């Protein structure tokens, strides 16, 4: 595709439910990143994939959060037992060069998650 896409664009769920958020990176980009952005804040790093493996998951807040990228392309962020504090916009980004995470990242439009 032309850019990074994320689905759904909006997700409303109830406290305690399980949700999955999907990211389709730019074709050929081997590096993929997940961020979380709360209102009035900048994006907060969650996890980084290089190919199929999670190279850095130090930003995941707790074990309710998990992400996979089984074929090195599409990634799914999974949140178990959602809490109201999980409400935020979840952003996905990809970049071409896996060896240098500091290079330009291309962001998707985000998924706005609301936990009631």
């Amino acid at each position, binding site marked *: 595709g032309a850019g*990074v896409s994320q689905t759904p664009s909006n997700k409303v769920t109830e406290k305690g439910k399980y949700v999955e958020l999907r990211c389709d990176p730019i074709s050929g980009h081997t590096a993929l*990143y997940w*961020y979380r*952005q709360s*209102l*009035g*804040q*900048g*994006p*907060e*790093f969650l996890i*980084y994939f290089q190919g199929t493996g999670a*190279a*850095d998951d*130090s*930003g995941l807040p707790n074990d309710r959060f998990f992400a996979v990228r089984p074929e090195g392309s599409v990634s799914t962020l999974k949140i178990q037992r959602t809490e109201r504090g999980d409400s935020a*916009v979840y*952003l996905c*980004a990809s970049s071409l060069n896996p060896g240098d*995470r*500091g*290079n*330009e*990242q*291309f*962001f*998707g*439009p*985000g998924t706005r998650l609301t936990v009631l």
Partner: protein
Amino acid sequence: SQQGEEDPQALSIQEGENATMNCSYKTSINNLQWYRQNSGRGLVHLILIRSNEREKHSGRLRVTLDTSKKSSSLLITASRAADTASYFCAVRGRGNTPLVFGKGTRLSVIA
């Protein structure tokens, strides 16, 4: 933490004026990047400046970096209403570390 912190938090100017936003950080960096975000959704990369560079230009954008002061500035010249957005700096530390974003500056350009 090496989080970038933008200043001011909000800025309102008239179309045609220049807009200057500042970013400060705390530790040594590999590079510093500026991103733009419209309506709280996806970010767009504007410019990257490496730690050994002092100034870069891209169209109406000018970025400076002062590593001795651990600060950077983004200047948008001849602003347009379409420049209205939030602008974030993001720093990448040395080693294989993730980008760390600041809280952003909300720029409003009034036509």
